[in-house]
């Protein structure tokens, strides 16, 4: 691990933070098009963040220091988790610092403080959002872990850079276990990032909110940090799915040419992912909360089938 690896890590972390609003803007634009509107420009989230940062921040009378500190902690934890996922190159120092279980742990830390912030203001909406968020994430956690297990049992490592290296070399397109793990992880990603059909990110009805209910009382720079963290989380899961299961194009060294090519590859993959997400959000409807367990049980079933396919079909040949 030398200085170059750390420089790549820093570059990648900055790129994550800079590009997260762009992915959100792209998905917004696509959904608008599918609904026969022109939609806001893809740069609109940047303007929104700038506006929020310059606005005044207000807090409720009942809010405490946890409410104030939560946006910073949520953003820091999400950003650190994102920085550990290879975006451009697998020569990444942060991947050795936080493996995929630590990434899940950091996201759990962010969620913990988000839920506490929801409970802090002492309103019914905040408590409702916190309760629902912890409920959905509790059911999603085993599915995610079993899908990760399938990956690690094949690649023999939890370090994401090693997993991607293995996938590149093995060209494992036709692995049944990976197919099932991918399907399971897609469902988990939809649940964790709060997209339709689990949660509607653009809803204005408080009783249908999960993520929005927890940040209902935030304003100004606090709200900006929370929104940015949510966008980072979406980008994080997108890069995880694209780079781990479809790793072609990612650089295995730190040559500038390889990095540029890798940037092009990931942009392409994320564009396609955006299209898929926009289409699925337009076609599906949000489920009521107590159908979410069925959804997440399907994710768990897929992940378990992936694991069993690996144990039965792929080993001992």
């Amino acid at each position, binding site marked *: 691990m030398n200085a170059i690896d750390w420089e790549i890590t820093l570059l990648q972390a900055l790129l994550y933070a800079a590009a997260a609003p762009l992915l959100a803007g792209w998905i917004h634009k696509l959904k608008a098009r599918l609904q026969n509107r022109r939609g806001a420009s893809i740069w609109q989230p940047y303007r929104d963040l700038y506006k929020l940062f310059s606005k005044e921040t207000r807090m409720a009378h009942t809010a405490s220091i946890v409410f104030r500190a939560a946006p910073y902690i949520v953003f820091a934890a999400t950003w650190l988790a994102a920085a550990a996922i290879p975006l451009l190159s697998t020569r990444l120092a942060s991947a050795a610092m936080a493996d995929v279980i630590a990434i899940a742990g950091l996201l*759990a830390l962010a969620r913990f403080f988000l839920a506490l912030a929801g*409970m802090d203001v002492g309103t019914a909406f905040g408590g409702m959002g*916190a309760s629902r968020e912890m409920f959905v994430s509790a059911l999603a*956690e085993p599915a995610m*872990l079993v899908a990760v297990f399938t990956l690690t049992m094949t690649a023999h490592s939890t*370090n994401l850079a090693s997993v991607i290296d293995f996938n590149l070399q093995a060209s494992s397109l036709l692995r049944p276990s990976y197919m099932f793990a991918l399907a399971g992880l897609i469902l988990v990603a939809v649940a964790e990032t709060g997209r339709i059909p689990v949660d509607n990110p653009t809803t204005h009805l408080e009783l249908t909110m999960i993520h929005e209910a927890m940040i209902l009382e935030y304003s100004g720079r606090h709200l900006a940090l929370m929104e940015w963290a949510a966008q980072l989380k979406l980008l994080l899961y997108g890069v995880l799915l694209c780079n781990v299961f479809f790793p072609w194009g990612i650089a295995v060294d730190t040559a500038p040419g390889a990095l540029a090519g890798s940037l092009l590859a990931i942009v392409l993959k994320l564009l396609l992912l955006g299209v898929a997400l926009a289409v699925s959000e337009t076609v599906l409807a949000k489920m009521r909360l107590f159908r979410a367990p069925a959804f997440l049980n399907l994710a768990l079933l897929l992940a378990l089938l992936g694991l069993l396919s690996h144990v039965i079909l792929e080993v001992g040949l």
Partner: protein
Amino acid sequence: MATHPLWWAGAAIGLALLSSLVSLFSARQPGVLRWLVSPLFALAGLSAVAAGLLALIDKDVATATLPLGLPWLPWQVRLDALAGFFLAVVGTISFAVGLYAPGYLRGFEGGDDSLPALGGFAGLFLTGMLLVVLADDAFLFMVAWELMSLTSYFLVVWHHDHAANRRAAFLYLLMAHVGALSILLDFGVLAALGHGFSFSAMRDAELSFGWATATFLLAFFGFGMKAGLVPLHAWLPEAHPVAPSHISALMSGVMLKVAVYGFIRVVFGLIGQFHWQWGVVVLVIGSISALMGVLYALMQHDLKRLLAYHSVENIGIIFIGLGLAILFLSTGHAVIGTVAFIAALYHTINHALFKGLLFLGAGAILHAAKERDLEKMGGLLRRMPWTGLFFLIGCISISALPPFNGFVSEWLTFQAALQAWQLDSGVLRSIVPIAAAMLALTGALAAACFVKVYGVAFLGQARSRPVRRARPVPLSMRLGQGVLAALCLLLGILPTFFISLLNAVPEGLLGHGLQQATSHGWLWLTPVSAQTASYGAPLVAIILLLVLVAGLWLFGRGIRRVRRCDTWDCGFSQPSSRMQYTASAFAQPIRRVFGLLFHIEEGLEGSQPDQQRYRLKVSDRAWGLFYLPVARLVERATRQVVRLQSGNIRIYLGWTLGTLLLLIWITV
């Protein structure tokens, strides 16, 4: 001689006994309890820590024979790395409790309950635990075990004026003795096959597979009952809430660990062989305990009962680690087995720290607001900022979130489970990941539970008057909690240092340690190898801190000048504290999904709409499925035996005649 670990251990025991003796004087002078007994208790804890650390660093085994006991069976003590580790665990929590007690006990002065009893039995309790860990023969072990159980019974029943407390303490005593019986039988088998009651004789015993499994099962049953594994856990949620909070911290944080020590000593130390079937049994029961423990905890709204159920969950996690260790060691994968073993040990110290911290916090809330029911609390962070901070650290640690200590032990357990691909049997290769998935579910549910606890108790608005008027707690209570909170952070940030200390334990027991875990420097924790997995704990903590500081610096100018406003109320009138989510409401989605596992009765009482009350009762299915049938069986059996007591003196003489005839016939 002053640096010899046994000297410090002896000093610890002596100080504990002294604190017990001195508290006899506190009947007339309550201040004695605060100024003399508690500092002695804390010093005893400190000596135990010193003894433990020296034993871990020295890696020499120190033995001694005490001039007590039977003439042909003197008491032997032995301080090796395993005993040293557990001495350190016991000592740390005892030190924190000793710091905490003066402030806490001030609330009991002038009350009805006997102060000398509290101080006296607490000292004896500590002595018992220290002697159990140090014992090197079955006799001393059982005597110390009994001392521990009996003194803790008296401590649990200290508030003896409530009948419910007495019932809870009775259940505790009953189950402690059933467990002790099983342990005694276990030692009996080992002593018979090893021809001696000392542990060194038992270690040399030749055990066939059948006898080894019998000893294993007896040890698992006995120590598992004391540790609180499902379905033998029923005493835990009854006894722990009833005791005074600093005693609950000792029981939950330390006594359960002494049971884990007993299990490790017997299975890993004395029996000496491993079979994969044992590993599967321990793994399955550990997973079930972990999941059921956290689900039951989610349904509670009594803070101390909730914490007691979480102890069941964490003991389950420790046994998951031990089960994985047995599994891997029995199939020849020594390195991974050691990783799992170290994970279990790390979780032991972690749980002692954060559970102790949480119980001390619950005691602080009880002291300040006289309230144990979550549904009446709220907004305590404003009234008790330091307690709130330390309790938050405890909540984050127990939810296994980085950068605190709970995450490190869960990470190590997952790393051990993820090496399941090395096993030969396909069935085992499927079962281990399923157990790990249950562990993941447990972790997520624990986080949900502690968001509920912290959110309902400390955040939001107060839901009752005494809570609104809560006073901050005395310095000594804050100090005790602070020590534990600082240790939680330390064990989370510097895992490599603590694992290099812990390495002495598997080296002593299993013959090899985990060198490669720390071989890449103090920054990286690499349990199996650097390519497989690594965790840079200090780096994660530093980067999180850097980003936070950067954020504060960037937006620092606005910090003082944030204006306050009303919350969004959707157009309704002034939101009151009753409109907040209650603890039962928070857990409702989870209660609904996992409802089949409990016995839930809910309903509305009252006829007038504005006078209706919502009633919710969640009870443990284990009572109906396991305990009541066993109790009924025992009753039926005793009713048969009662027939022997006919009351007729001639029949009794007839029994005597029959026995005499039998004895004469046998001897002739």
